[in-house]
């Protein structure tokens, strides 16, 4: 009996010795990265990390999938408060102000100076870096960037007697085509949205309208949202009108509406570009893509960048910071950025990668992955309204937007009343946030 006990102890000891990371023995600098990329995107991340480690024998980067964006942020907050935060964390775009105000991070623009290097920030794609800039400098490294676009079913367009190569450019056209689609009996509803709250924000940005005061919360913390402005009410009024005609059907949050589009029950879907691979693969019809439809008579802005970026935790040793920087530089290498785009559908973040993709003829092979890229490159880059809104309690305010859209579409409240209610709640949260983050 006693022998077995000692055997077990010995075994446990032997195991624990084996588990001591090889890297520590080899004297490598270890850094950890928490990310929220699962499924096929997670595999691409793993491949990048593996190649990085192979190319950098001094560093050992460990990438850990830490749940959804929300979960990753919550975990990061907890870890930071208990001083066990990873070197690098991926945070979604709505968490940007939270991270900026966190006091937990080093802005990426300061890192080259800290490790004694120089870096050319102009090599990144401007509409993407615009989103993550504060005071003219980049605070987090763009990683997986997407935007919204219009997907449409070419087969259903043809069935309804519409030109399958002429998607709607304006909401007026969309309404007319929607009526035809319904009248032809091809579909019962023509259009739905993914991320309806985000689509509402997109409407503001693509028409160069401010969503909140203080330059969309980009010059100082926003204290007031402008969602119940004349423009906001006009947009929601229009959506409700389309819903009453049966042209628009509200499809729920995030990706719930995708299945209706892929099943051919609706002919058009406004959704994130990150759905492109899934939609193309999962649909038995010809998928077309187009810019987000516009309202006539309004100035043009740009579509807002979504997705996530990478933030560097402060208080790391110089060696760790050097390792983190090596990785961030690695991500900017054209071949890495190209592989990332091809594997996931997210935008390549550096201009050189875009050039490589163009030279290679990638976009002519897959024109749908060019659509959204042209959309952001052809849009305005010089206004805060076009860069998109930045809010402290953004996640909550987005819920208020969604609730307002849901209530208005269901006929529970008028669009104006629904947006007023959302704006009142949002302003209170903004005031709370401003008080805590003076």
């Amino acid at each position: 009996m006693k022998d077995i006990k000692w055997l077990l102890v010995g075994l446990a000891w032997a195991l624990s010795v084996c588990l001591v990371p090889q890297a520590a023995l080899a004297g490598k600098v270890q850094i950890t990265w928490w990310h929220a990329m699962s499924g096929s995107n997670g595999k691409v991340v793993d491949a990048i990390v593996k190649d990085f480690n192979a190319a950098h024998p001094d560093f050992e980067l460990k990438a850990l999938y830490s749940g959804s964006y929300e979960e990753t942020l919550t975990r990061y907050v907890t870890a930071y408060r208990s001083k066990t935060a990873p070197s690098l964390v991926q945070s979604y775009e709505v968490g940007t102000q939270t991270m900026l105000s966190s006091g937990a991070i080093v802005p990426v623009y300061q890192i080259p100076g800290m490790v004694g290097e120089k870096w050319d920030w102009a090599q990144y794609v401007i509409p993407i870096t615009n989103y993550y800039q504060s005071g003219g400098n980049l605070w987090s490294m763009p990683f997986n960037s997407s935007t919204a676009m219009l997907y449409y079913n070419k087969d259903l367009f043809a069935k309804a007697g519409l030109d399958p190569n002429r998607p709607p450019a304006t909401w007026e056209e969309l309404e007319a085509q929607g009526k035809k689609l319904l009248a032809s009996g091809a579909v019962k509803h023509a259009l739905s949205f993914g991320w309806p709250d985000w689509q509402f924000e997109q409407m503001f940005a693509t028409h160069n309208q401010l969503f909140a005061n203080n330059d969309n919360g980009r010059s100082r913390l926003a204290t007031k949202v402008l969602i119940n402005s004349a423009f906001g009410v006009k947009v929601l009024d229009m959506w409700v009108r389309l819903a009453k005609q049966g042209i628009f059907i509200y499809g729920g949050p995030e990706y719930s509406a995708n299945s209706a589009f892929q099943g051919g029950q609706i002919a058009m879907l406004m959704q994130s570009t990150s759905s492109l691979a899934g939609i193309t693969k999962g649909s038995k019809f010809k998928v077309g893509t187009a810019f987000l439809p516009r309202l006539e008579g309004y100035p043009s802005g740009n579509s807002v960048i979504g997705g996530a970026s990478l933030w560097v935790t402060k208080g790391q040793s110089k060696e760790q910071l050097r390792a983190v920087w090596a990785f961030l530089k690695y991500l900017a290498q054209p071949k890495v950025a190209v592989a990332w785009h091809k594997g996931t559908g997210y935008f390549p973040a550096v201009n050189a990668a875009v050039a490589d993709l163009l030279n290679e003829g990638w976009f002519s092979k897959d024109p749908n992955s060019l659509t959204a890229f042209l959309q952001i490159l052809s849009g305005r880059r010089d206004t805060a309204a076009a860069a998109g809104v930045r809010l402290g309690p953004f996640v909550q305010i987005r819920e208020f937007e969604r609730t307002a859209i849901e209530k208005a579409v269901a006929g529970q409240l008028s669009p104006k009343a629904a947006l007023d209610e959302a704006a009142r709640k949002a302003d209170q949260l903004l005031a709370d946030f401003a008080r805590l983050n003076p």
Partner: protein
Amino acid sequence: MANAADQERFPGHPLLPYVLVLPSVAVIGVFLVVPFLQSVQDSFYASTAFGTNTIYVGLRNYERVLASSDYRDSALATLLLSSFVIVVGLALSLAIAQLLNQKIRGQGFYQVAFIWTYALAPSVAGAIWALMFAPATGFVPFVVAELFDDYVLNWMTNGDLALLVVSVAAAWKMLGYNIVFFLAGLQNIPEEFVQAAKVDGAGPWRTFRDITFPMLSPTTTFLLFVNTIYAFFQIFGLIDIMTRGGPGNATNILIYKLYRDAFLYLDAGAASAQSIIIFVVIAVAGTIQLRFATRKAIYAR
């Protein structure tokens, strides 16, 4: 300290009993009492997500929560949902258990067929119901549209419908569990009682009302309590998969709202205040239920 009587009840070292209960007390202390006290403290503060700034706000978190229309809507939704789960769910379970208790062919098959829903993970159950009711692709909206002249059944926009669907799914999910207990309770009722009632000329309804139901009261009390806890807390998974509290917060029940405030919006103060409020409500409801029901319950036979 230790008198003779104690010595007799607990032979051995006088401290032994305390040592023996220490592990349980320690676990409860570390995992329940300490976090609870922490929540009580947090509920009086407002703080940034990263804890960089914390302001004492007194009772403001409570005032805010109780004054907000969202919270009242959430409480109402919780009340409606839990009433449905408790009243309709339990009544249906009892009726089915009564039927399953008959000596019929294939009894085992029927029992399993009704009980298996409990073995489903909430995510699976939620996905099944969500797919069934998916506005554009689901089976139920399709049937409704065929039957009622293209009526659009869209629970993504219709809050009342969403609450009903979630309530039905929640009650359905709990059906198996309730049936198992009711079945066990029914099978424990001595046959003689029922026979005697029959001899006295009682019909099936009378037998049920005066014999079966009172004899089942310990089971019913237990299930009442379990279902309340279920409807308040464990429905979380279903809500998260099916509606995420929407549309228009129609299914944003208390526990889901608390989760979102704490882990999505990183507002520890408001979330702590809510958790204390739920704690008080559940404690009061539980005490009343137990008091009331145990007085009525017939344990002796």
